[in-house]
Structure formats: structure tokens, C-alpha cells
């Protein structure tokens, strides 16, 4: 009895002591709910450091602002709200003035032009921390390439704040479309990611489909009906020289895509009414058959490390997605939802697959993990198809076609969260976009 009383007393003492211990030290709280909203930033016009750089300075700041706002992750505070201005690139920042307008990031820059050389330097400040975020950077290039330098500034700002790579200094190759549906003219075009600097690579004499950038961004694979039936061509962007990838007579080859190394092309080939997936060494022209089933298997896409591929097949009776070793073998089905899945594209991060889904008369662009889990539909419309990933794996571009005889196809982009769905500015209609890697 006495022992019990003593033990109970000891337990109580320990409990009290523990409580006292818990009360010591800092106050601890856990925050699990935040807000998701664009981060407000301010970009005063860059400072011209040479006489003829005035307009360039204004334009550079405008492009930087458009890049950041266009990502959906940032919100620009208009210049009309500024309390103070930046008159000297090296002058100390009046943080209080920027805090007052709730600018959480401040971007200052300076521009100088010397002949055909353009120099751009910038600094990024964390206003509420009262400190510079990273160190200042400077870019040099040609005057004609001023937009690229603006994109590079945007990429640096984006990367420092979000912690992931940017995608602004990149290009997109796509099929430019003009004319009515029954007589649509198609030609290859390449442009900056934001629709600027459009350049046409082919004429509209023959139908072209599914252009794909090489890992280095200097070549393009595409399918053309120039010979009357689909053949795969390789085009050098710089020289606009092209050559056809050899294939046997009586066959149709299409849906090409580069391997991560850039030395191999994976594509679909139809022979005798059967469509399977093949690879071809670009240098030697030797091909290897990866699948051999009576089903239609196409739209292959490599994983970032090149060890696996994802493709679509109707071997199960309906169009579904499969993952397989890049050297062939047994394929594993990863899509099990309602509807049909197609045009899978492996994310540059390697964690997701983007796809086109058709279900109940609607088309969707969606993403899922490699095991088929966490399927997320990002869009829904009459016809959405052909997703392509931004270099940072955060944004997807695709083609959307409107309904009716007067309908047209145009390019759209959307964040993988499903936010920030918006059209991409193109001079004409567009389809089959393919995003390039970041430019050097």
C-alpha cells in the first residue's frame, strides 16, 4: 500500500516536472495553412547607362514583367503606385517605400549599349527582409537579342524566388495553320515561348505534323506527307537543311521523338496494317523493333534518363498508356480511368506524364504519376491535345481547337496545378507544339 502511494506520488511529480519542462524554451506553434497568391513585385524601368539605351531599358523591364506575370506566380505592382523611384542602379534601396506598397520583391536593372553589344545587369531584393536576394548578374549580347536577355533576367528572378528553374529563355516549334478546315495550310514555325520572333521553317506545300525539338534545341524531327505518305524528317534549325530518315518502301513512319542523348529516334512504323514502335540510330540508320503486337502502338516518349519509354496502345481493347523499358520487353499499363488516353509525354523532372484524355465527348489535358496514381485533369474543352512540357516541368503547352466548321486551332498553356490557363500569342493558328530546352 505504501509502495503504491509512493509510486503514484512519483508519477505526479514527474508529470508536473514534465509540464514545467514543456513550458520552458520558446513558444512553439505550427502553421499548416497559408495562402496561394501571386507574389507582388515591382520593376522600375531599368536605368539607361548609355545615351541610346533609353527605349531599350524600358522595353527590357516590360518583357521581364510580362514574363513573371505570365507565369501566374507573380503580380506586378503598377508604376503609378510607386512611392520612390530608382534613379541609380547602385543607390541604396528605400525598403520602407517598397514595403508600404507591399512589394515583396524589387527588381532593378541597368542597360548600356555599345555598338551592337547590349549589356544588361540587374539586382533582386527581398523587400521585407531588407536584403538583396542573391547577387547581381550581368548579361551581354547583341542588340537584336535583347528579348533573350530580358528572358534570362526573368529566369534568374524566377529561379531565385521559386527555387526551380525558369523557362522563359526557350522556344517552341509548332505547326502554323491558316485557312478553313477543309483547306488548311500547315507549315512548321518556331517562336519564342511567348510567341515573339516567329520564324517559318517549311512552306505549306505539304502536310507536316508533330515537330519535336532535339535535346540540344538545334534540330527538329517532324512528319511530312511530302512523298504522299508519312515520312520522318530531320531539320537543322540554323541552316534549315533537312533529310529524310530512311524507311522501307510501303511503310509509314510517324510520331518521332529524340532520345535524351539526341543520337536515337524513337518512332512508330506501320507495315502491313500493323503499327509498332521502333528506334533508329541517326548516325547508322539501323533500326530496332521494340514492340510486336497486333495492336496499334504509337506516340512513344523517353524518360529523362532514357531508360524507359511511355507510349499509347490499344492492346487492351481501348487506347491506354503503357510504360516499358527503352530496350523493349514487357509493357506495364499505367492508365485505368474512364475514357481513352493518348499522346503521353514524360516530364523533364521525371515524376509525371502529361497526356490527352478523351472521355464523354470532352478532351482533357492531364497529368499522372508513373504508376498511374494522382491523375489530374487540367483542362476540358471540345478538343485539347498534344501536350508538351516547359523545360522546368512546371508548365504545359497544348493545342485547343474550337468547334464548328469555322473552328480553328490555337496554342494554350497551363500550370500543372491547373491554374493560369491562357492562350499563347501566335500570329496564326497553331497546333502540335513542342517546347525546346532552355537556350544556352
Amino acid at each position, binding site marked *: 500500500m505504501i509502495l503504491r502511494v509512493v509510486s503514484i506520488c512519483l508519477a505526479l511529480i514527474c508529470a508536473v516536472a514534465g509540464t514545467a519542462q514543456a*513550458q*520552458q*524554451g*520558446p*513558444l*512553439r*506553434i*505550427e*502553421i*499548416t*495553412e*497559408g*495562402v*496561394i*497568391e*501571386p*507574389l507582388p513585385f515591382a520593376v522600375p524601368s531599368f536605368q539607361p547607362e548609355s545615351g541610346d539605351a533609353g527605349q531599350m531599358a524600358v522595353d527590357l523591364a516590360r518583357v521581364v514583367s510580362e514574363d513573371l506575370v505570365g507565369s501566374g*506566380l*507573380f503580380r506586378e505592382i503598377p508604376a503609378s503606385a510607386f512611392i520612390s523611384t530608382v534613379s541609380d542602379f547602385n543607390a541604396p534601396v528605400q525598403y*520602407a517605400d517598397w*514595403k508600404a506598397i*507591399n512589394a*515583396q520583391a524589387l527588381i532593378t536593372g541597368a542597360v548600356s549599349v555599345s555598338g551592337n553589344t547590349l549589356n544588361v545587369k540587374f539586382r533582386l531584393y*527581398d523587400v*521585407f*527582409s*531588407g536584403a538583396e*536576394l542573391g547577387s547581381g548578374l550581368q548579361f551581354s549580347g547583341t542588340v537584336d537579342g535583347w528579348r533573350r536577355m530580358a528572358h534570362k533576367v526573368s529566369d534568374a528572378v524566377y529561379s531565385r*524566388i*521559386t*527555387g*526551380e528553374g525558369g523557362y522563359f529563355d526557350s522556344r517552341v516549334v509548332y505547326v502554323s495553320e491558316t485557312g478553313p478546315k477543309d483547306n488548311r495550310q500547315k507549315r512548321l514555325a518556331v517562336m519564342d515561348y511567348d510567341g515573339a520572333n516567329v520564324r517559318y521553317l517549311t512552306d505549306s506545300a505539304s502536310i507536316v505534323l508533330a515537330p519535336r525539338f532535339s535535346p540540344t534545341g538545334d534540330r527538329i524531327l517532324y512528319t511530312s506527307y511530302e512523298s504522299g505518305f508519312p515520312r520522318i524528317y530531320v531539320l537543322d534549325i540554323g541552316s534549315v537543311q533537312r533529310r529524310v530518315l530512311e524507311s522501307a518502301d510501303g511503310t509509314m513512319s510517324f510520331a518521332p521523338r529524340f532520345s535524351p542523348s539526341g543520337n536515337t529516334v524513337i518512332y512508330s512504323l506501320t507495315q502491313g496494317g500493323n503499327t509498332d514502335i521502333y528506334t533508329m540510330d541517326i548516325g547508322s540508320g539501323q533500326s530496332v523493333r521494340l514492340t510486336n503486337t497486333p495492336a496499334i502502338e504509337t506516340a512513344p516518349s523517353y524518360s529523362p534518363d532514357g531508360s524507359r519509354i511511355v507510349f499509347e496502345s490499344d492492346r487492351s481493347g481501348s487506347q491506354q498508356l503503357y510504360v516499358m523499358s527503352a530496350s523493349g520487353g514487357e509493357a506495364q499499363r499505367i492508365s485505368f480511368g474512364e475514357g481513352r488516353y493518348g499522346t503521353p509525354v514524360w516530364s523533364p*523532372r521525371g515524376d509525371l506524364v502529361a497526356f490527352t484524355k478523351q472521355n464523354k465527348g470532352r478532351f*482533357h489535358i492531364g497529368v499522372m504519376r508513373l504508376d498511374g496514381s*494522382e491523375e*489530374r*485533369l*487540367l*483542362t*476540358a*474543352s471540345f478538343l485539347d491535345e498534344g501536350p508538351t512540357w516547359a523545360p522546368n516541368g*512546371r508548365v504545359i503547352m497544348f493545342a485547343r481547337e474550337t468547334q464548328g466548321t469555322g473552328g480553328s486551332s490555337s496554342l494554350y498553356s497551363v500550370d*500543372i*496545378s*491547373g*491554374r493560369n*490557363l*491562357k492562350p499563347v500569342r501566335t500570329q496564326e493558328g497553331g497546333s502540335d507544339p513542342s517546347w525546346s530546352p532552355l537556350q544556352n
Partner: protein
Amino acid sequence: MHTGHYISGAGHLGLIAFLLFGGVFRPDPEPFEMQEVSVLSAAEFDALVAASQSAEPPSEAVQSETPPAPAETPEPEIQQPELIEPEAPEPDPVPEQPAPTPPPVPEVSEAAPELPEPPAEVAVIAPEVAPVAVPRPVDRVAPEAVAQPDPEARPDVVEQEAATPDAPAEKVVDEAQEATAPEEATTEIVTEAAEAPKAAPNQSARPPARRPTPPAPQVAEAVETPDPTPKPDPKPTPKPDPKPAEPKVDTDAVAAALAEALGGEDKPAKPAPAAPTGPPLSSGEKESLRLAVSACWNVGSLSSEALRTTVVVSVQMNQDGTPQTNTITLTGSSGGSQAAAGQAFEAARRAIIRCGSRGYQLPVDKFGQWQNIEMTFNPERMRIK
């Protein structure tokens, strides 16, 4: 001593023996009683009847046999009736007479109750057939037909749109710009994504509601922390001094009390300044602080990896409720790389500074409790789903 055992053992042995050999004492089954029955022919029966009329002694034996006779009647009955009828009151002939009579029929009617065979009637069978005739499928067809009108409705919509242009053109221009965004949103089932940004402004509106309260303490604190902020308004510097002095007295008293309670003389002097003093914060006060920081914790620009990273941030506070920005440090992280932790920490630090720029609403008399705060920012619920 063992008497009981002996008795018990004997009893058990006896019981076992009885069970084993008890059959010996089982009474023999009673033998069947056999009775011999002699079959009499009609001639013998007549002779016996004739004898019974003269001599009685044998009648007993005969009577004793007669009762079973009727039991066996089924077969002999047919024969006996003819013989018995002339002889009279024999009970046997009686049953024969009823055969031709109708009365037995009514008895048969009792068999009719067997008619309750109604189960056979099972009128229920009819209802089983009936349901087939139910015209429910017609209802199913109807809704499909309703779907067709949709295309016909379009012209109406067009007409309505034609009417809208009448509205003020200049105002419509502004709406047209906004219309582009809604179209994007409406095309998405991803309405959850659209809801998130809508929720943001609601939370961002919270801080201002709390900020107005800490006016007096701010002045006092501004005096204590003149260096960090260029705000030091030379206003009521003397007033703040007495206020902070009061809590100090309390802390000393509490420290002394703790020292006495612990019984140590050396210890109380050291832990007193480090240990939190004053009454503990109530759950409501903690929740208020948590919500205030949450309102400024913007994870919208964080990378996917940073959204998987939990960071623990420590900060020292001024008495006016503002954080000492140079004391905000990352004390721990989990779930992501060092770079991701750095990004997550930046977002956390911005949250602490932004919403604390005017001072968090915290009780001054409990300053000892919240002088040092450790905040864990867990973005698990904020991830893309």
C-alpha cells in the same frame, strides 16, 4: 485425516462400478404379451352364435374377442354385413348403412376445408405478371428526349446576347478584358484551383483587423528597439518605461518563487532570464498568432519540392509584438533538399516579417512566454493535389 478421502474414493469407485456394471441391475425388458387369435369361418361363427344363445359361459371368451373383431372389420366387414343384416342389432352393419346415405357427404365436405389449397389459387401469381406491364421505361426515355432541345435553345441565347450590346459600351470594354479570364476558368473542371486564389484575399484581409490593437505597447517597444527601425518617434518615451517595468517585476517575482519552489539557491538566478515568465498563453492567443502568420504565408511561388519541405524557424520578438528580423533563423527542415529548405525558409521569413511589421497581437503581460517563438511551417495541406 484421510477419512474424507477414503469416503470420497469409495464413493467414486462405487459410482464408476455402477456405471460399468450397472447394466446388471437393469430390469429385463418386459416380455411382449402375445395373444393368439383364431380365425373363424362363417360356419363356425354361426355355430358360435347359436351356442351363445343357449349357453353363456363361453360368451365371455367370445365377447373378449369380439372387440378386436371390429378393428379388423375392414376385411371381414364386407362379408359380414350380408350375414348380419338379417340378425339385427350388431354394430357392424351400422357402418355399412351410412355408406349409401348422403350424411357422410357432408362429412366429406369437411375434407373440403382442404380446399384451403387456396395456396394453389395463389392469386399472388397474378401480381407477378402485373409488374411487367408497368410503363416505367417510358420515363427513362423521356429524359433523353429532353436532351435534344438543347441545340434548339441556342438561338435564344444568341438573341439575348444581341440585346446585351445595348448596355454601356465603355463599361463593357472593361468587362471584356475580364471575360477572357473567366473563359479560361470555366473551361476547367479544375475549379479547385480557382477557389484557392479566391480564398487568398479573405485571409490577407485578416491582418489589418488585428493590427489596430497594439498601439500603446508599440510606442514602448519602439523605445526599446530604436536601432532596427527608423520609426523612433520621440513621443511618449517616458510612458513606455513604466509599463515594461511592471512585467519585469512580475518576472522577477515568478523567478524568485520558482527558485524557492525548486529549493535551489544557485539555479534560480540562471534559469530565470531564459525560462518563459508570466502566465502561459491561452489557446486563443496562440491561435490568433498562428492565424496572423498564416495570412502572410504565401506558398504560391514555391517550387514543388519546396512545398514538400517543412521548415522550423525561430524568431525573437520585441515587446511591441514585432519580430526582430535579424534573429529569424532556420533551425531545422525535413522533406526536401537544402535548396528547397532555403526557399521554404524565405517564404516563412517573409510571412513573419510582413504580418509582424505592425506587431502581432500578443499580451504584453505574457511577453516572457512569447519572447522566443519557434514556428513550424508545414505545407502538407498546401501541396498541389
